[in-house]
């Protein structure tokens, strides 16, 4: 099997740093660098750093585990509304399914997403976790 190096390399920056796009004309922000605004179709779109905090807009608890979870679950998938209103889908980590709530404040976490195989490339990227309480 061909390694996925080119695709992983292409996605790394947006996955590592949560980069997004902002339309210069209509102001709509969305996840990942884009060349066309999904809202108004303008090609005047710039790459921006998306906020690292937000709240859980909606969620589901996944009990049917994909192979890469290696038997660890159930796990939480959520739509996170970032501080600037941008919504994205992400896994919620460091939180038990019975504790997740709509409206819960969350922050960016850097985590393993998967790997090709024991011999292959490891993928990293963003997930979200409950905000760590500070003293």
């Amino acid at each position: 099997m061909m390694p996925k190096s080119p695709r992983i390399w292409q996605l790394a920056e947006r996955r590592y740093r949560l980069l997004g796009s902002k339309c210069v004309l209509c102001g709509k922000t969305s996840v990942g660098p884009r060349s066309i605004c999904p809202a108004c179709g303008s090609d005047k779109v710039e790459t921006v750093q998306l906020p690292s905090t937000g709240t859980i807009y909606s969620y589901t608890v996944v009990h049917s585990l994909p192979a890469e979870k290696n038997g660890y679950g159930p796990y939480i998938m959520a739509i996170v509304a970032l501080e600037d209103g941008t919504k994205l889908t992400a896994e919620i980590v460091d939180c038990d399914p019975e504790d997740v709530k709509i409206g819960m404040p969350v922050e960016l976490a850097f985590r393993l997403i998967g790997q090709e195989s024991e011999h292959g490339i490891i993928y990293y990227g963003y997930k979200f976790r409950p905000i760590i309480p500070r003293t």
Partner: protein
Amino acid sequence: MTVFGDKKTVIVGYGSYIPRYRIKIESIAHAWGESLDTLRGLRVQEISVKGPDEDQVTIAVEAARNALRRAPEVSPKDIGAIYSGSESKPYAVKPTSTIVAAAIGASMSVRLADYEFACKGGTEAIISCISQARSGMIKYGLAIAADCSQSLPGDVLEYTASAGGSAFVIGHDSGDPIAYFEGQYSVGTDTPDFWRRDLIKYPRHGGRFTGEPAYFRHVIAAATGLMKELDMKPEDFDYIVPHQPNGSFPIEVAKRLGFSESKVLPGLLSPIVGNFYSGSSPTGLCKVLDQAKPGQRILLVSFGSGAGSDAFSIVVAEGIERKRGLAPKVEDYINRKKYVDYSLYAKFWGKIAR
């Protein structure tokens, strides 16, 4: 070995990260039928456990981001070198520092490398950043000390080997200093106390041999060597942060060096989170920085099996008061915890797999 003679080589940002999961040593002892009486000498109650989607890279990135939060005056584009010290890199060939660089948004004009010297790869990363900042080769360097410490199932190392780490933004005559380096002294010998052969998953060690001829000999030599160079005594230091392979060695080595227990306890993490290998003494340093006052002096002494020690004299600067609250403290991570049993611990670490 090196007395800097000025206050210009500085830490401008520091940050740590500890995973959420913990296992009590009773759970490990139960799994292997060990008596807790035989483990009391370790003085360890519980250890951190990496999550199922965490590794040395994710810990390094989280710590690096916290260090940069405490260095708001530093753009990631101004970082000229990123060095990561570890003995648990997920890739044998591909530096962790390359992934950290991308994750923090560093420039392509950056010097990247990983260091390995058992539990002192992190302090080697700090020394490289110090020397390159002092020489003017870089404006700022990012030194990372992090590990997901490996341990053979059933071995005594399981009661201490844990996961966590720290990072430091280091500069020279720049930024808003949190602390400055006064001097540095290193020792090294050929001492086979602990090792991991190529392509082998878990380290092996010489049992009690890891104590006197390894840990104590090197930590004491580096600490006394540095104090002699600086013409200082234990009374001149407010804190000592030695490497923490368990809960008893740091207290014992501090005592032998002439430090009271009250000077080692503020930076002692191993009884409640275990041994982060490369991240051990650097995270102890962060815990001290979380509470120290400007003007206080810290003696940091790492130990890496094989064996060697790096000692540093560090004086806390005014910037600590302005920057301490910009990122989670070590204590915040210590307080955030969820216990797992041995079966989940083993699964998270990949000691068992479907």
